[in-house]
C-alpha cells in the first residue's frame, strides 16, 4: 500500500528468500565443517530440535488465535513433573505417566483459559501471571529449585527418549506426530478455520456465530497439553525433573513462529513455516557448535534471523 512498489519479480524472491538463506547456511556449514553433513549429525539436529518443535507448534496455535503464551515453560515443567510423580510415587507404567503429564500441563492451560476467557485478562498478562505462579510452585515443590532425579526409571518411559522406531529416534517420531496433528488441526479442520477467524477479527467471528471464548479456552488447554510431550521427552532424556527447564524454550518458540509467519503470503502463523523456523534455529545452533564458535553467538544469530525474516516480510508487503 505505498506509492512506490518494488519490481514485480522481487516479491516471489522475497517470499522464498528464507528458504534460500537456509539452503545457503546448509551449504556454508557443510563446507566449513565437513562433520556437519554426516548423517548422524543431521539426525542430531532433528533430535535436538524435537522439543522446540513441539513447543513452537503450541505457540503457533495460540498466536494464530490472536493470543500469546508466556507460560509454555510452566506447561512443559508440569508435564515433566506429573509424569515423574506418576512413575516414581505411584509406580505407574509409561503410558499412564504420559497421561498424567498431559493432565498436569492441561491444568496450566485451563488456568490460563480461566484468566483469559473467564476474567477477560489479556493473554500477555494472564500468561505472565501463570508463569510467575507456576515457577514459584516449582521452586517450593523442589525446596528451592534443585532437580529431582529418578535413576531407576522404567525402560518403557526411558525409551520415549532413548528408543527408536525403524532407526528413527523416538523424539523425532513424537515431534513428527505432533507436527502432523497440528498441521491437520490448523490448516485442515473447521476448528482451525475458526481459530484463524478469531485471531484475525474476533468481533466478526462472534457475529458469524462462533463461540469465541470456548475456542480460545480449547486453544490454550490444547497447546499446554501438547507442551507436556516436550516435558516427557526432557524427563526421559535426563532421567530427572529440572525445575524451570521449560522456560528456555519460550523465546525460541516465539521466534520460530514469527520466522514461520514471515514466509506466509499474508504473514500468518502457519505450521510449515514454524517447522522451517525451528529447523533454522536448530541448524544455526548445530553449525556454530561444530565450527567451535562461541555458543553465545547463537542467540545473536537467532535474533538476526528473526529480525531479517521480519524485515523481508515487511519489504514483501511493499512489493505486494
Amino acid at each position, binding site marked *: 500500500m505505498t506509492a512506490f512498489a518494488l519490481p514485480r519479480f522481487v516479491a516471489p524472491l522475497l517470499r522464498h528468500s528464507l528458504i534460500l538463506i537456509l539452503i545457503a547456511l546448509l551449504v556454508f556449514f557443510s563446507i566449513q565443517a565437513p562433520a556437519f553433513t554426516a548423517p548422524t549429525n543431521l539426525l542430531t539436529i532433528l533430535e535436538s530440535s524435537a522439543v522446540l518443535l513441539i513447543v513452537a507448534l503450541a505457540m503457533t496455535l495460540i498466536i494464530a488465535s490472536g493470543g500469546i503464551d508466556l507460560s509454555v515453560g510452566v506447561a512443559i515443567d508440569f508435564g515433566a513433573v506429573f509424569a515423574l510423580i506418576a512413575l516414581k510415587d505411584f509406580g505407574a507404567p509409561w503410558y499412564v505417566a504420559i497421561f498424567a503429564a498431559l493432565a498436569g500441563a492441561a491444568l496450566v492451560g485451563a488456568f490460563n483459559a480461566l484468566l483469559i476467557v473467564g476474567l477477560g485478562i489479556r493473554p500477555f498478562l494472564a500468561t505472565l501471571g501463570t508463569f510467575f505462579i507456576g515457577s514459584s510452585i516449582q521452586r517450593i515443590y523442589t525446596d528451592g529449585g534443585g532437580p529431582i532425579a529418578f535413576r531407576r526409571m522404567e525402560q518403557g518411559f526411558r525409551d520415549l527418549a532413548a528408543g527408536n522406531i525403524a532407526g528413527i529416534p523416538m523424539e523425532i517420531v513424537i515431534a513428527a506426530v505432533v507436527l502432523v496433528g497440528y498441521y491437520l488441526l490448523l490448516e485442515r479442520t473447521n476448528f482451525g478455520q475458526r481459530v484463524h477467524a478469531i485471531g484475525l477479527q474476533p468481533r466478526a467471528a462472534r457475529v458469524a*456465530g462462533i463461540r469465541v471464548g470456548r475456542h480460545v479456552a480449547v486453544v490454550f488447554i490444547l497447546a499446554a497439553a501438547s507442551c507436556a510431550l516436550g516435558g516427557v521427552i526432557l524427563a526421559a532424556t535426563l532421567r530427572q525433573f529440572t525445575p524451570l527447564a521449560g522456560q528456555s524454550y519460550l523465546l525460541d518458540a516465539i521466534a520460530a513462529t514469527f520466522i514461520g509467519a514471515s514466509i506466509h503470503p499474508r504473514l500468518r502463523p502457519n505450521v510449515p513455516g514454524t517447522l522451517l523456523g525451528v529447523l533454522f534455529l536448530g541448524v544455526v545452533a548445530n553449525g556454530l557448535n561444530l565450527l567451535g564458535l562461541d555458543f553465545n553467538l547463537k542467540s545473536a544469530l537467532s535474533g538476526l534471523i528473526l529480525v531479517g525474516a521480519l524485515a523481508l516480510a515487511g519489504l514483501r508487503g511493499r512489493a505486494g
Partner: protein
Amino acid sequence: MPLPLAAASLAPGLTLAMTGIVKTFPGVRALDAADLDIRAGEIHGLVGENGAGKSTIIKILGGVYARDAGDILANGEVLAGGAAADMHAIGIRIIHQELNLVDHFTVAESVFLGQERTDRFGGLAKRRMRREAEAFLRDVLECPLDGQTLIRDLGIAERKLVQIAAALIDGKARLVVFDEPTAPLAAAETGRLFNAIRNLKARGVSILYVSHYLGEIVDICDRVTVFRNGRHVAVLDAPNPTRTDEIITWMIGRQLDDLYPAAAVRTADGIEAEPSFAVERLGDGRSFADVSFSLAKGEIFGIAGLIGSGRDELVDGLYGLRPPATGRVTRAGRPIRLDPALAVQSGLVLVPRDRRRDGLVLDLAVTDNINLASLDEVSTAGFRRERRANARATRLADLLDIRPRSVGTRAGLLSGGNQQKVVLGRWLAAEAEIFLLDEPTIGVDIGARAEIYRLVRELADGGATVIVSSGDAAELIGLCDRIAVLVRGKLVEIVRCGEISVDGLIARTTDAAGQRVAS
C-alpha cells in the same frame, strides 16, 4: 465561521486533470484508461457501480497506489511523482471510504494524529488541540463532541466526522475528496455535512464527491463523472433530479425499472395470527427501553430512527451482542436466550452495519467467509472439504452476482457492495429464517441495491422474517411492510408503509415529531 477553515480561503481551489489512468491488480484491471477532470472550486460528483474503480482512482490521487500509466495535471502542471507526501503537499485531502481511526485514541488525538500541535517547549499542546478539535467539530461539522472521548465509544457516524475533521483541520486543503462520506450518516448528519461541503466550496476549495446516493449527487454537485468498468463513460453538466435516470443508465448500462420489488403477498395483516418473532418490553437500561413488537413469517419489518435513537443498540441487543437488561424475546411463543452463537444455530442472523469490522474476516477468502457460519455442512467429521466449500461458495457468488467471481479472492479486496453480498451469502448458505439487516445497502450501488431488495423480498415471500434497520427513509418505505419509529430509545409508533411518505417518516424520527406523537 471561526478559526481553522479561514486559512483555506487563502489557498485557491485546485484544478485537476487525470488522463488515461491505468491500474491493474493481480487478476483485475481496476482502471482502464480513465479520465477525471475537476475544475477549481466546483463540487464534482463521481458515480459508478461497485467495483467501477472510484476508490482506486481516489487512492491514486492520494498517493496510496502508484498508477501503472496516465498523467495527472494539477493547475496545468504535470505531476511527476505521486507519493502520498506530494499529494498532501499540493493540498489534496482524502476522506477515505474506510474508517481508519485507532480505537483507544481520543477524539482530539485522532484529529491531530500526525500533525500534533506543540507548545513552545516542544511538548504536546494537549489543551489547545482539544479546544481546536472541539471547535472544528462543533462549528464546521456541527457535531459537538468532547475531545476526550475515546474513538471506540463513538458511533460510526461520529467517527466519520472525526475522520473528516482530521483531514481538514490544518486549513491547507485545496481539493477535498469525499469517498462515500454519508454512508454511515442519517439524514440530519448528512445535512450538516453538506453545509460543511458548501462552506468549503464557498471558500474556493475544489471538491470530489463520491456517493451511491444519486439524490445527494444531483443535489450538491456541479458536474458528475460516471465510471463504468474502470473507465469514464459520461460527464454530465448541471445534474438535477430529472437526470437521475440518465445517470443510472450510464452507470449500469441498462435502465432500472423498479428499485423496490412488489411483495407477492403483503402479510402485514396476518401478524396477530402467528407471531414468529416477538419482542416484549425489551430494554438495555441505557439506550432503549420498553420496546415491543411482534412479527409474522413473511414480513419485512423496518426500524427507523436517528443516530442515538437506540436503533443500533436494539439490533445488537436482539442478536445478543449486548444482551438487553429487561424484557424478553420469543420465537414461536417460546422465550429465547439472546446470544450470537445460539442465534445462528437457530437461524436468527445478523448482517451488521459495519461490514468491514464485524461482517467479514477481511483476510480470509470469499469462500471461507461465505462458509464460516456453516462449516459443518462443507466438511466431513470436522475436516474441511475444499471442493465442497468452493462449490457452495461459487453457487452463492453466482446467485448474488459477486464480482470478481473467483471465490479465492480475499474478502478485504472486494468493493463495498460485493462485500455486503458476501455477508448475505453466508446467511443464505446457513439457511437462516430470521434476518436482522442493519443498514444493508450502505455503500451498495443502485443496481446491486435493487438486487438485494429483490432478494430480501424473495426471502420474505419464502417464509423468512426480515428486520431492516436503516437510516434511509426511502429504503424503509420501499422495502418494508411496517416500520417501527424509534425516538430517543422509545418505540413511538409502528406505521404501515402504504400510509406514510418519506418526508413523513423522517419527520416522525426527529424529536419534534416524537414529542407531537407523545403529547
